[in-house]
């Protein structure tokens, strides 16, 4: 009796969802893996099986490894800055300061603007507004467009990503801070903990669940960055700010080497999956219950 109704429940509740999941995630994924073994150019009807030749091609594609290294650098900067900044701002915004709701909404706004639009807005800011400021004030920092110098263009990318992402993370951290048990805080104060000690021993461990989520979100988002990369720098100057996801797209569609691009995408996927998995495992272990 019981098992029978379970089967029916499964059909009613899980099957539609499972079907969608398989159709839009599993099948394309498996198909994508299959494509890495072919020499498909994206349009022809024949797909020749080439074995692991594409993976050998990835090893030889120096530009891919350069862009992957750059992506790592970018991820480190973005993840660290976003989380530290968001944590600090969220902390300030939950201490009952005047107008904190206004600030919360304000900080969140950049996140509502799509990556492409945001990139174009900042491109204008970097190449026109800043340059104009530089011209009229004579500040060397702004005299030439940031986007025409490799290291400054990279800094610009990090800056814009931080600006966009931190609002979202602030929201999660704010929720975490609001959920902190007042009793525990009060008890800690009575026991003489204050300032840094309270932060390190009481607040941080209790905030670990928020940290897990935020780190995961920033990590995966930063690794997969494409929209801001495309609209802000498009790899300029001379291909020095081309991140891994963009390189994969260029390989597949501009160079028309679908198999090779797909193989690079698969490698990127494995790296991101491993790192995010490891991060969730490590931070989960640190989570405590109040």
């Amino acid at each position, binding site marked *: 009796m019981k098992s029978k109704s379970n089967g029916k429940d499964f059909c009613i509740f899980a099957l539609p969802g499972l079907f969608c999941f398989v159709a839009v995630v599993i099948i394309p994924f498996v198909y994508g893996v299959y494509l890495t073994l072919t020499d498909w*150019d*994206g*349009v*022809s*009807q024949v797909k020749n099986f080439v074995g692991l030749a594409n993976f050998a091609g990835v090893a030889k594609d120096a530009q891919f490894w350069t862009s992957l290294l750059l992506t790592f650098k970018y991820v480190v900067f973005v993840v660290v800055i976003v989380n530290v900044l968001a944590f600090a701002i969220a902390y300030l915004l939950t201490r009952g300061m005047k107008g904190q*709701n*206004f600030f*919360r*909404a*304000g900080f*969140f*706004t950049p996140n*509502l*603007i799509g990556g*492409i*639009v945001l990139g*174009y*807005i900042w491109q*204008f800011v970097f*190449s*026109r507004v800043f*340059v104009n400021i530089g011209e009229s004030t004579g500040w060397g920092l702004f*005299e*030439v*467009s940031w*986007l*025409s110098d490799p290291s400054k263009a990279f800094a610009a990318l990090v800056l814009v990503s931080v600006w966009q992402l931190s609002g979202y993370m602030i929201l999660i951290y704010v929720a975490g801070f609001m959920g902190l048990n007042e009793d525990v805080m009060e008890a800690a104060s009575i026991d003489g903990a204050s300032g840094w000690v309270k932060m390190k021993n009481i607040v941080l461990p209790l905030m670990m669940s928020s940290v897990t989520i935020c780190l995961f979100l920033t990590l995966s988002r930063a690794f997969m960055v494409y929209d801001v990369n*495309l609209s802000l720098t498009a*790899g*300029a*100057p*001379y*291909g020095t700010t081309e991140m891994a996801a963009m390189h994969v797209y*260029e390989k597949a*569609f*501009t*160079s*028309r080497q679908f198999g090779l691009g797909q193989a690079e995408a698969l490698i990127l996927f494995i790296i991101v999956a491993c790192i995010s998995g490891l991060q969730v495992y490590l931070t989960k272990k640190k989570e405590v219950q109040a």
Partner: protein
Amino acid sequence: MKKEARKIIALGLALAMATGVLTGCRFGFASDPDDPNGEVEEEPIDTSVDTFEYDGSLEGTSITLLNSKAEIQVALEKMSVEFEERSGVHVEVMPVTDGDSPYTKVVSLYNSGNPPTLSILDTTDVIALAKEKAEDLSGEEWIGEADGYLTEVDGKVYSFPLCIEGRGIIYNKKAIEETLGEDFDPASITTLGEFEALLNRLAEAGMEKPLSLAKEDWSLGAHHLQFIYETYDGTSEGAQEAIEKIKAGDLDLASYGRLEEFIDTFDVLKTYNVAGKDPLGADYDEMAIDLADGKTAFWFNGNWAWPNLSEAGADNGDEYGFLPYFMNNDEKDFVNGQIQASPSKQVMIDGQMSSEKERAAAKEFLNWIVYSEIGQQMLAKTCNIIPPFANNPYEPGDPLSRDIYEKVHAGETFNASAIVPNDHWSILGAAMQKYLAGRSDREELTDSIQQYWDEQK
């Protein structure tokens, strides 16, 4: 309750600020689509005469046209309305959205089993798709009218040449004359040395940096660099031969004269670049404004730049034209006297998924463009492009296209277009950017080109 109200106010303010940011960014852009003064005037079309014979059996057919030439989207829609009124065939014009490449778009449409009946594509794309997807058009009547402008794949014609486009150094005659205080005759400049002397005189007369150079990779990688193949002997076959030789290692780039001359020319352009201090920070819209305002006198570009110039305030009556991409001091060398002009956009008919009737309707549409009085006028005047068909008596309206048109008819152009791999512009465009920024030298640039071709084997 009070808290709720405060939240709502906060959200409202945040939204107001966001819209402020979004609209604020329009400040300083060249074009304002809402500005009635900025509207481009359009020449009226005479629809009284139409001797084209429409095939009545096609009435009610509906076909699609993928358009990758954004500036003629509106014009194509108008053409489709006119065509439907007369033939009963509906042509749905689909634009390739900004940021998508035409090839990516057409490939995704094919992969979803819903390809456009007609697609406007670049020549390289047509060659990539021709044999498997395209309808063989070798038997079409218009072939006879487009002599010299057809693209053949294995001896067959798979595409319809839509327009001729040319590129070179655009000049603003008024700006030159006002700066120098004398008449300017573009024909008087016949060598790189004379051009450099002119730039120098302009600089001395107060126009310190008289030239604009786009930093975009498509401009540098395709429009500049491809001159080294196209000037091999000034024909498309020659360009192909040069490429094959470079690939095979038979043509050593380090001692290839055209590459050396090309870099010499590029160095001159670089020296007088208005964005010389920060060449990679140059802004495309601003270049059009600078040229139209007379802050600069030259801009390396093609006749497709007219909409930008027109938005920047240039008028159809103004005197703009092209100087050749001078490459040396030999007056007799064709590169110093002729402008590169060749068919750039091709229309392909899907031969794989479309029905017999749809194909017939698509062919009729192409014939209508070539043979009907209305189609001819709309191609030249509404789309404002240079028709490659000898029987089309109409001239394009804007000064840049008109200049190319006149030069084509006076034999002052060379028709060569290099067919290069699809990532040529992006990969070598980056190498050119590096050279433009002064972060690599001749040798490194030459090596990058050589390396690129070595990888294509």
